[in-house]
């Protein structure tokens, strides 16, 4: 960015969850996100990858304050999101939106899809009813849906179409940052590529910045500019995409890459196992090469 302020600056973000072991068991605190820091520049696609329980989804939700982080800072365009009052947060949400993984449960089944996409415009008091309906039709065309279907219900659409509806809703208020949490993993293989292409087209057209949360490394390699690999709440390694896939430094990144099934029967298969000892004790990230950080 021209003035040197990144679009999003996450510093030492931490989230603890309290849980009881059984009904009467002792209270225990689980640290889901542990001092995670990263910066996303305007127009970039930054990916958080990791396996289940790595904290990638919790990180995304803490940034939008869909859940409240325990500590840390989230700076969006130079303002501290965690210091916002409720009304300031609501205003800021216009600029930061989320697309969820499951297009089957993230759309209200009792609402017409046109109303689902219009809802954020109503909440943020945008325009007259007629102007809003025109905007909804425009959003439908933008994501490749036919505005003639505005009065239908979610169940009348396929998974790929529902994900387009979720995207139209997220884009209604012209956000600059979109957190895409596993946006294609619930879709059929042949439909995934359509939605990925749509995400790429929209990014160019609308100058969007993506925080892309995913477990599919092949997809992450394809779509993102920089990648952070998470394990048990911490970033193990963070680098420009080509660097991370070409010259991984952390043993966990190497293990993860070696486990990806390659669609080639003759590809060499040398698998590296995961050793939790790599993370005990936790090591701080250090810059092993320009813009390449690893907890080694």
């Amino acid at each position, binding site marked *: 960015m021209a003035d040197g302020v990144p679009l999003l600056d996450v510093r030492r973000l931490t989230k603890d969850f309290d849980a009881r072991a059984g009904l009467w068991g002792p209270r225990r605190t689980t640290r889901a996100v542990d001092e995670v820091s990263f910066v996303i520049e305007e127009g970039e696609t930054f990916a958080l990858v990791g396996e289940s329980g790595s904290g990638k989804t919790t990180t995304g939700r803490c940034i939008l304050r869909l859940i409240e982080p325990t500590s840390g800072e989230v700076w969006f365009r130079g303002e501290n999101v965690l210091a916002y009052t409720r009304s300031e947060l609501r205003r800021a949400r216009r600029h930061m939106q989320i697309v969820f993984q499951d297009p089957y449960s993230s759309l209200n089944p009792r609402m017409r899809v046109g109303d689902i996409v219009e809802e954020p415009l109503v909440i943020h008091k945008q325009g007259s009813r007629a102007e809003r309906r025109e905007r909804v039709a425009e959003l439908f065309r933008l994501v490749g849906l036919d505005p003639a279907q505005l009065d239908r219900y979610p169940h009348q659409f396929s998974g790929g179409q529902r994900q387009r509806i979720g995207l139209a809703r997220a884009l209604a208020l012209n956000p600059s940052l979109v957190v895409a949490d596993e946006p294609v993993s619930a879709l059929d293989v042949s439909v995934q590529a359509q939605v990925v292409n749509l995400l*790429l087209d929209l990014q160019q057209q609308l100058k969007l910045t993506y925080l892309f949360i995913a477990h599919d490394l092949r997809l992450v390699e394809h779509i993102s500019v920089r990648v952070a690999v998470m394990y048990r709440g911490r970033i193990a390694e963070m680098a420009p995409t080509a660097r991370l896939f070409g010259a991984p430094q952390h043993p966990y990144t190497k293990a993860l890459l070696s486990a990806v099934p390659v669609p080639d029967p003759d590809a060499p298969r040398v698998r590296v196992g995961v050793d939790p000892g790599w993370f005990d004790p936790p090591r701080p990230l250090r810059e092993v090469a320009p813009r390449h950080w690893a907890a080694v």
Partner: protein
Amino acid sequence: MTALLSVRHLTTVFDLDRRSVAAVDAVSFDINEGETLGLVGESGSGKSMIALSILRLVQPPGRIAGGSILFRDRDLLACPEAEMRRVRGAEIALIFQEPMTALNPVFTVGDQIAEALVVHGATRAEAQARALELAEAVRLPDPAHCLRNYPHRLSGGMRQRVLIAIALACRPALVIADEPTTALDVTIQAEILDLLRTMKTRFHLSLLLITHDLGVIAGTADRVAVMYAGRIVEEAAVRTIFREPRHPYTRGLLASMPGSGPGRRLQAIEGTVPDIGALPLGCAFGPRCPDRFDRCGSGPPPAFEAGPEHQVRCYLHQPKDALR
């Protein structure tokens, strides 16, 4: 090689109010001894219905409407239910997709492995001893301790190992694995696929591996059958499928994978998977096919030879002399 399993013209339908729709439409394939056949398809393609049909576990409104399933020289679709009960587990075993729900939460892991053996005639003591052997074979960490645990104490990967142990308990000849790694993390998936490969060699198994993931298929299968809308549209050796795919759907699937082509845009297949109740006339893939021509609407294409041991249901591969 002799075929252990020969499926011929298998048709499994769903009875709706006024009509029946075919989830599996006249499907034929063989699995040879010691071979892994990969069955690839998207949701609704009928691949899981094939697994249930082989074991005769199709539930209403589903129903096997025709065909034959020859296994060790008898037709499973014609044999009495009592004999089918002996076949299930003892000769053909099934591994499910969901390791979280396929185990009974109120019995220990050891009891559930032993139960499979007791049902097929072992004594309790024999079953307990064999359960421990199996737990070691599937590399459960600290097997004796693991067997005394309840399923909720185990991780997803460990539960899948338990399910594999149960499947192997009675030394079946054929194991059907329906999306065995789909619910697992990628590092655990790699371990389970390694285990399946090892078990296959050690116990001389034949394997029917059902998955939507071409990456999983590439590393595990010997032969591949690609399904679309209830039919096998292409079948060939694994190398042939990946190096010389002939059906436009197979080509489209391979090309749509991230990293398979240059540029940032992916090569998407247009449209969506059709509803089996409303299939287009002619080739079911026709409306999405980049290569369709007038003949595609004329009727479902029969299987044409595209090479040795390579069949493809696509009019592009109809021999020229058959056109007249």
